[in-house]
């Protein structure tokens, strides 16, 4: 493991107009880790990811990816650098087929043969997508759509994958499948994962480290296991 963090946020401020969502948020992700960001509704979790991707512009502070300042890099360049997000609510392309969705993940790549191989690879990883490759994305179930969104992001060959609420609105058994897949991606492909979750229990079990966000700031940072055992966290986020 190299000593340089793959992603580092330093004192980042951002927001929507007069509403400030992030007020000096700092965090770092080392290569190969799974890091979870947990927090309540409206704490700024999704905004953090959107700010990293440049969809929401950072007003202050620095965002480094692999040592490169990416504040001013436009969002569509990031996949070429190996940074990709699975946005909240999946946001697959509903009227395009599964296959086309996957091909859009590989949009910036030109190596058609390799893309086709990768699509076959994702069908192996998500067999259900292979069965439904000619179906429109919008006709898939919620869990399948989430898998499609993850598969689509993997098509960009990310080094760092940002996942926003992968468990949103899914049945517990599907959630478990999704988290198994996340762990597999991390282990087999060596992809670093930054995970945002409301379901703190699940997220912290999957992650190696965790951050707690409250009103746009990091209030706590620790190993995932110790966060799980932290009585304050248990009370606030695990409902005990």
């Amino acid at each position, binding site marked *: 493991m190299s000593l340089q963090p793959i992603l580092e946020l330093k004192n980042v401020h951002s927001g929507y107009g007069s509403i400030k969502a992030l007020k000096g948020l700092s965090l770092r992700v080392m290569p190969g880790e799974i890091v979870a960001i947990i927090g309540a509704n409206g704490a700024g979790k999704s905004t953090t990811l959107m700010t990293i991707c440049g969809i929401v512009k950072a007003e202050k502070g620095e965002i480094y990816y692999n040592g490169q300042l990416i504040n001013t890099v436009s969002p*569509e360049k990031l996949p*070429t650098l190996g940074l990709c997000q699975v946005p909240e609510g999946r946001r697959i392309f509903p*009227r395009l087929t599964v296959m086309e969705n996957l091909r*859009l993940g590989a949009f910036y790549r030109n190596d058609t*043969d390799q893309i*086709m191989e990768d*699509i076959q690879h994702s069908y192996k990883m998500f067999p259900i997508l292979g069965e439904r490759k000619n179906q429109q994305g919008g006709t898939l179930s919620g869990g399948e759509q989430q898998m499609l969104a993850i598969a689509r992001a993997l098509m960009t060959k990310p080094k760092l994958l940002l996942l926003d609420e992968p468990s949103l609105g899914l049945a517990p058994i599907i959630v478990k499948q999704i988290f198994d897949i996340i762990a597999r991606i991390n282990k087999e492909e060596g992809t670093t994962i930054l995970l945002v979750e409301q379901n703190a229990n699940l997220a912290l079990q999957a992650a190696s480290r965790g951050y707690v966000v409250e009103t746009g700031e990091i209030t706590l940072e620790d190993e995932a296991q110790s966060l799980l055992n932290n009585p304050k966290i248990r009370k606030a986020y695990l409902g005990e």
Partner: protein
Amino acid sequence: MIQEFKKVWKHYTIGILWLLGLLWPLMGIHPDGTLTFQKTVTVWSYILAGSFVCLMIYVMKAGDALKFIATPASRIAGNIRTFATALPTWVWISATLIFALAYPQFAGRYGTDVAITVLFYICLGLGLNVVVGLAGMLDLGYIAFYGVGAYTYAILNITYGLAFWVCLPLSALTACIAGCIVGYPTLRMRGDYLAIVTLGFGEIIRIILNNWMSLTNGPNGILGINPIGIYIPIFENGFTFEHIWVKKLQFFYYFALALVIVAVIAVHRLNFSRVGRAWESIREDETAAELMGVNTFIYKLLAYAMGAVFAGVAGAFFAARMKFVSPESFTFLESAMVLCMVVLGGMGSIPGIILGVIALIALPEIFREFQSYRMLIFGATMIIMMLFRPAGLIPAKRMGTRSEEKEG
């Protein structure tokens, strides 16, 4: 059956009374201040009788009383449908092509004239389809680029005497530049806002054409534009070329047909390309497309400019056909018309657009005998079509077909 009737009679009565209320001011109030009822009631009673028959048929159908007709009818319809889908696409394409090629031979002057208009609108519809159907941007000022193309040819031809074939790419280029100029500031908007801004820009271009007297001759338009000129080889005494003007309508028809064939092939290729996929992703979800590495702004601008190119080329042909251009040909109504054709035919589907254009151009022509009522019939037909086929006459085919490409 009685039960079915009970369900609908209330709506029917309200509807027919509402129609009476609508008809009377239109037909019964005269400009000299007199009020009559006779004519209104007569017309209304015809409509009443006609619609009552329709209602009874509907009720009987809902009550299964028409089974003896409906069952065989639906079987025949089903057979036709399976037959139609069983035929490979190339059969359809070649049949259409043969029909299109043979058409002027038996259509006569008037028929050919209408057909040329249809071909122009097909080209426009295909161009607008790139913007609206593929990239999902509602463009209400599209006809302006048609005007830019037409005026480019008109002005270059009149002032510099440039030939049609030289001006054709120039028309495409100026339309493209106009598209970029309009698109650059407007494409940052989405949805309704974009529609309003494009509407405004369309009008601006028309008003410029109307007021720039020194260049465009204002509302008087430009007269005396040369038709298409071609060289044909003559073998009589040696091998020489003779220059002729394409003045005959039948002859011109084939040029317009060639234009449409090129446009269809171009749109088809675009649709199946990487660019087409990028456009569709933008239509589906702009943020997600951006996250996947699609430069949304550039691709939106490209779609807009591409649509403008189609319109510009069609415009040059239009100017060559009419030998006259004036700003009146490029009003908002035309934009709305083209948009109607695209939506009615089926956004994103090439055969759908062709059918939509034919329906919207041919219908008013067929109903010409009804005089002032033809627009009413036209409107009613559109409402009915949208009710029964909301995705268009021939909806864009999605599932399966496109994904088969190059699969390993």
